[in-house]
């Protein structure tokens, strides 16, 4: 094991990795590459296979087929302790019988790092996560956020090339979460060589932190791209609804426009053949009230006040459309007629073949 300053090899590659328990397939031939220094978010609902993918990198599940590479080295057959990874899990898993500094030193001692180097590296890791003042405490004496920082310090102390984060913020309350998100972004800037695989079901965490997002659903990779790509130009209906909660409306495609329950709507139809049915995708915050370039008329079915915004749900030609608008002085009454609009360039047309089954 390297005990010098150099970090371990970075980068992760999944090569058709499948994991199954008996007959149920929980990860279906995943192909994905995380570049050295890249933050890749695995985003998906529970049961989508994202945690299984992370555990396959850590070595806690063995793929039934496919290979896993870390830093270009095939680690598929290696036990977890020989993979050179750092891992942080949702429930922290700090060793309750060891003090904070002993927890952070654990990996260094296990790897037989030179005894003289250990105190310095423990101090560095605690300094980096802002926990230096708590070195002598036991985990039970710390708050959830502090425990999470110690867990991160413990993972970073061994200077791994790959950092695996499994829902690291989901046990924290909302305010701590946004603080820790900023901390993680800072840590990544300080450790530019480390590849981070970040498993989450929270799209905000993924959009904020990731260089690229891999969207997973039902054991499969559905989409992969930069946050901007996935948000502005989703390629599948699942991505569109999971990332940003988009309106998805079935339309039939004409030339330069589509028809939504009889109403003509102007959108970019390039790439979709005329005459077929497709899905129109518009973000709720890009839908406005009142007449505009692309007007849709419907009836108000629900109005939710969310402080700074109102969410208006309207039924347009039998389909529910969400509109997030700035707080209204006089919100529309339920059952009243309403006109919604959106700009042609804010809508994305998904060909039916691309969208999910």
């Amino acid at each position, binding site marked *: 094991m390297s005990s010098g300053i150099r970090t371990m090899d970075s980068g992760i590659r999944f090569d058709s990795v499948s994991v199954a*328990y008996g007959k149920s397939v929980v990860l279906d031939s995943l192909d994905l590459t995380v570049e050295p220094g890249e933050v890749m978010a695995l985003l998906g609902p529970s049961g989508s296979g994202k945690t299984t993918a992370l555990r396959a990198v850590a070595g806690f599940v063995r793929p039934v087929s496919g290979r896993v590479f870390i830093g270009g080295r095939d680690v598929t057959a290696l036990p977890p*302790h020989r993979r050179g990874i750092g891992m942080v899990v949702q429930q922290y898993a700090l*060793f309750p*019988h060891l003090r904070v500094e002993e927890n952070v030193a*654990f990996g260094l001692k*296990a790897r037989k790092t030179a005894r003289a180097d250990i105190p310095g590296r423990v101090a560095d890791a605690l300094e980096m996560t802002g926990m230096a003042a708590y070195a002598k405490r036991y985990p039970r004496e710390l708050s959830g956020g502090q425990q999470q920082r110690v867990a991160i310090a413990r993972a970073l102390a061994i200077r791994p090339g790959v950092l695996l984060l499994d829902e690291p913020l989901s046990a924290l309350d909302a305010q701590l979460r946004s603080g820790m998100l900023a901390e993680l972004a800072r840590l990544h800037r300080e450790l530019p060589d480390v590849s981070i695989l970040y498993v989450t079901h929270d799209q905000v965490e993924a959009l904020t932190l990731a260089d690229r997002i891999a969207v997973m659903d039902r054991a499969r990779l559905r989409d992969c791209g930069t946050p901007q790509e996935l948000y502005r130009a989703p390629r599948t209906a699942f991505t569109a609804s999971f990332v940003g909660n988009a309106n998805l409306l079935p339309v039939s495609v004409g030339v330069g426009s589509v028809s939504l329950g009889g109403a003509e709507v102007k959108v970019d139809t390039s790439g979709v053949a005329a005459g077929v049915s497709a899905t129109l995708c518009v973000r709720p915050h890009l839908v406005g009230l009142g007449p505009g370039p692309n007007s849709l008329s419907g009836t108000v079915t629900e109005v939710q006040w969310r402080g700074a915004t109102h969410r208006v749900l309207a039924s347009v030609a039998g389909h529910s459309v969400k509109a997030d608008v700035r707080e209204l002085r006089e919100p529309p009454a339920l059952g009243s007629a309403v006109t919604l609009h959106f700009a042609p360039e804010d809508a994305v047309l998904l060909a039916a073949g691309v969208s999910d089954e």
Partner: protein
Amino acid sequence: MLVHSRKGKWATWTVFFVLFLPLFALPLLVIVAASFAGHWSGAFPSDLTAEHYSAATRGESLQALTTSLLTALGASLIALAAGTWAALAAAALKRRGEGTSRLSRGCGRILDALFIMPVAVPSVVVGLAVLVAFSKPPVILNGTSTIVVLAHAILVTAFAYQSVSAAILRLDPAYEQAAASLGARPAYVLWRVKLPLLLPSLTAAAGLCFALSMGELSATMMLYPPDWTPLPVRIYAATDRGATFTGAALAVVLMGATLLVLFAVSRIRTRASYR
């Protein structure tokens, strides 16, 4: 208290005092009373004396106490080591079998069954089995103290195995996995993470084994050599020849010694529990 109404509380306490206290506490109090009795013909003992105790803490009786303590210590240490080892092995086998391998899951189950056997089989049978097995070559232990310790160990290992198994089941695998991801080999994980976290359960198991061994009579009766007479055998012998009050004093000494050791063990346990 889960009973909330005032009436309910009173009823619960009444049931406790009327049914449970006489059943569980009174016989023990009677033993203590008998150990001080010179005569006992009426409802209460008379001619109170401490003579039985001076007899119970001298000579052969004192030697029997030492014998019992040493036997229990040896048996519970063997049981703890063997039971913990087997419980760890069974847990690992069962976990490995979760995914695909039926074979290792089956082996885990066989270990379970094997270690429950001494509980299911009457201890007289275990005593006889040990006697028969070690009275002939190649290993002759008949008439040695070793055979008594061995029989006790066999009898109490089942309890160590069961309580450590239950504790392993409760142990969050996240600790083990966190340690492995940090680069710790399985042996390192065992010594530095799993055993320290299991320590409260291990001491509890040791205490249980110790108490059971201190009280073991039926298998011991078949095996004990003249120079290795544990206290329960002496209590039985005293009662058998009609010296009930001497037996009672010996019983109180046995009870006191066991409770003292259990108390000491529970102090260690309090210091070892982290939550």
